[in-house]
């Protein structure tokens, strides 16, 4: 029968949470030796489905079969015993352990009760040679590159002789070149007989590597298609449910005078001995969106923290509209005109246990409008909050008194955007403002950024998403190992060229332009 082809079948899986059906009658069948893509937006139910496969959740309906036989997966150990392994989007690696220790963790070979590292090393070296996964077994995880960390994760699965390999958004942290390399590795693994489930929302990668693709939307299965019979446009329509123009609508930018001017900024690293930001200089003008592109961890976070005053610079200067704020506090910089949509909205951007109205005045509670001799004017706060909620369409259960923790991610982000855009500002710093949001929210945020630009603000966008970088920005600065290595025009550059800069393979001397002036 047909079943014989399938190594894993998830049949009619339904998983409900109170108030929401996360997976609604979803069927996914993985053939032996194929690369099967699972496509869907953030929140479409991919994570839930994988959690079911790993026994983290028990579905209300449906069954899982392996090689045609029904299996019961109660916890990750069961999944592991069935030969299912996963590379998580955020690696599950112990940073202070060596590569070898991480690979054997949980399945440690022992001799007389003691760890047998020699045997482990032999097997790891053998695997890494066989599959072309270069790693240094004795290096500490915290010292190796993200790409190598990912290879360690893959080796973890191979060391356990897993035959079903799941890759959860594996390319998010890689350069285009590294992505290419990873896709080759995946193909190699499939040729060796491994079956691969590739979770992604990036259509190009799916088109390049997958054999078949199952699409989820809002918890429902939109069908499974053969990649050779489909197009990017069709997949995109299946995923979002409507035509999506990936191009952002915007006028040509009209850069005005310089708003932000950074010269020779150097910021120490908290993790490494090397400086995180090294001698960086650039300007941002009124009416333009400047995007800092680069792979995560190349100094973007530190650059923004030093700019907004959360971290101290070692050397260098920052000017806002001609005013030197190099030594100013966070508050003073905020007054000088910086608005900041932070990278981690829950860690920095919001006090989750405060109400929505309390969060909306987080940057302004001290202004005379909202306080009198140290006493907060609660009625003013309420009025202000209601205005912002209305203007920015922030949805929540109980309006201004909703505890922010209970709001959805998209609306939490809207609250931050409302607060930062409504505050008097000259420069908007937005760090990964669309991370983890669905297409609707992403479009909204892009629209807001462009509106900000068109109203004469300067916008500094930090993004890891190449599409965002190319579509939204008016000018691209590429950061690599703490330095700005290239300044590009989004209309004239390509993915490939960006990738070369991002991986350090290509660099221009950008500093000269600014230091001369």
């Amino acid at each position: 029968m047909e079943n014989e082809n399938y190594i894993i079948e998830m049949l009619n899986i339904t998983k409900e949470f109170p108030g929401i059906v996360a997976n609604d009658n979803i069927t996914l069948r993985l053939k032996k030796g194929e690369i099967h893509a699972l496509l869907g937006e953030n929140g479409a139910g991919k994570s839930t489905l994988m959690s079911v496969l790993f026994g983290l959740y028990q579905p209300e309906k449906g069954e899982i079969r392996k090689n045609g036989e029904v299996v019961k997966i109660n916890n990750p150990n069961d999944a592991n015993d069935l030969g299912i392994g996963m590379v998580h989007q955020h690696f599950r690696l112990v940073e202070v352990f060596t590569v070898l220790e991480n690979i054997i963790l949980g399945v440690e070979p022992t001799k007389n009760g003691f760890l047998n590292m020699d045997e482990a090393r032999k097997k790891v070296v053998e695997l890494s040679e066989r599959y072309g996964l270069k790693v240094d077994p004795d290096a500490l995880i915290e010292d190796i590159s993200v790409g190598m960390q990912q290879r360690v994760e893959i080796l973890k699965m191979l060391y356990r002789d897993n035959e079903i390999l799941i890759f959860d958004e594996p390319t998010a942290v890689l350069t285009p070149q590294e992505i290419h390399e990873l896709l080759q590795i995946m193909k190699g693994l499939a040729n060796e007989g491994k079956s691969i489930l590739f979770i992604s929302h990036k259509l190009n990668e799916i088109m390049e590597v997958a054999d078949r693709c199952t699409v989820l939307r809002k918890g429902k299965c939109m069908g499974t298609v053969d990649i050779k019979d489909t197009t990017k446009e069709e997949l995109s329509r299946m995923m979002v449910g409507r035509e999506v123009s990936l191009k952002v609508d915007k006028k040509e930018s009209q850069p005005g005078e310089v708003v932000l001017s950074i010269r020779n900024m150097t910021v120490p690293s908290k993790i490494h001995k090397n400086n995180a930001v090294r001698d960086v200089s650039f300007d941002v003008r009124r009416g333009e969106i400047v995007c800092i592109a680069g792979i995560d961890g190349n100094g973007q976070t530190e650059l923004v923290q030093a700019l907004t005053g959360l971290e101290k610079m070692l050397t260098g200067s920052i000017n806002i509209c001609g005013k030197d704020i190099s030594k100013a506090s966070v508050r003073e910089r905020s007054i000088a005109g910086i608005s900041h949509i932070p990278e981690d909205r829950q860690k920095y951007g919001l006090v989750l246990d405060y109400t929505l109205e309390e969060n909306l005045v987080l940057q302004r509670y001290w202004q005379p409008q909202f306080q009198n001799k140290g006493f907060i004017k609660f009625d003013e706060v309420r009025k202000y909050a209601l205005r912002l909620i209305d203007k920015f369409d922030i949805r929540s259960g109980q309006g201004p008194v909703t505890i922010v923790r209970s709001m959805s991610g998209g609306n939490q982000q809207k609250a931050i955007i409302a607060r930062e855009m409504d505050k008097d500002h000259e420069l908007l710093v937005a760090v990964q403002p669309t991370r983890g949001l669905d297409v609707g929210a992403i479009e909204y945020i892009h629209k807001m950024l462009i509106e900000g630009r068109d109203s004469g603000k300067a916008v500094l966008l930090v993004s890891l998403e190449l599409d965002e970088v190319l579509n939204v920005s008016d000018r691209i600065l590429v950061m690599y190992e703490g330095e700005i290595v290239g300044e590009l025009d989004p209309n004239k550059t390509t993915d490939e060229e960006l990738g070369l800069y991002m991986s350090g393979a290509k660099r221009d001397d950008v500093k000269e332009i600014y230091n001369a002036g």
Partner: protein
Amino acid sequence: MDTFYYLVQNMLPVSIPLLLVALGGMFTERSGVINIGLEGTMLSGAFAGALFAYAIQGSGLSPNMILLICMIVAAVAGAIFSQLLSFAAVTMKANQVIVGTAMNMMMPALILLISKMTFNSDGVTTSVRYFIRKVPVLGDIPVIGDMFFKNTYLTVLIGFLILIISTIVLYKTKFGLRLRACGEHPHAADSVGINVNRMRYIGVTISGILGGIGGYFYSVGITDGNINGHNGVAGFGFLALAVMIFGQWQPIKIMFAALFFAFLRTLAYSVPLIPFLDNLNIPTDYYKMMPYVATIIVLALTSKNSRAPKAEGIPFDKSQR
């Protein structure tokens, strides 16, 4: 030279409780749980051990035999008592610092209560003489013999034995590797099939065992086999935490830290015997404060490059993948 031998001989029995309890603390924190309740755990062991010694002191067993038996009793008591922490911190995901504080308050009250009811006093007084004047043969070795095998207690030997075992367990076994993973990155451990909560229970239990033994050894080496509810173990449980931090959660460094703190304390109580210090005429109370002051200074100095297990104090929540 005699003063030197005197200091070493007195320092070692003081260092052992600190060493053992700090090692216990290391095992819990390496598994990801903060154990502020070590003071209470020590007291539980000290009291159970002393109580048992009181019960069997007339049986004709040799003091060192009594010590070994009571050590086991103390270990069991500490292990049981520490379950208060593991249940609250691991199963109930409670605030670990508050739970530890409650444990520290519980034990003195319990000791006072039991002692007042049974002995009509504030604690247990035993008459076992654990003191070893000189170990045969080994005590005759020049210098080494004077330092380690004269005027000492069996606790010193056991303490160093436990240190060696702890080091091996932590670094050379499957268990040690898994325990450390749980304290650093519990989700990584969980994803490879390690039962994080179980490991944390074990980590806490080990600290209970070592804390209990450490407490009993405190009563043996420092208060002549007695223990009372008012003075308790004089903050040794807290000092042990400082020793653990100073020792950077590593067994060998912890040993040196324990010796350092024990030295400070021994010095404080030996001022009249050291002519130089005696002549300074500083009240001895100042010296008594020294270990505590030193703790603050040491913590301030090490705070910048302190590498605590990353996940310590954070309850493990499986659903937060």
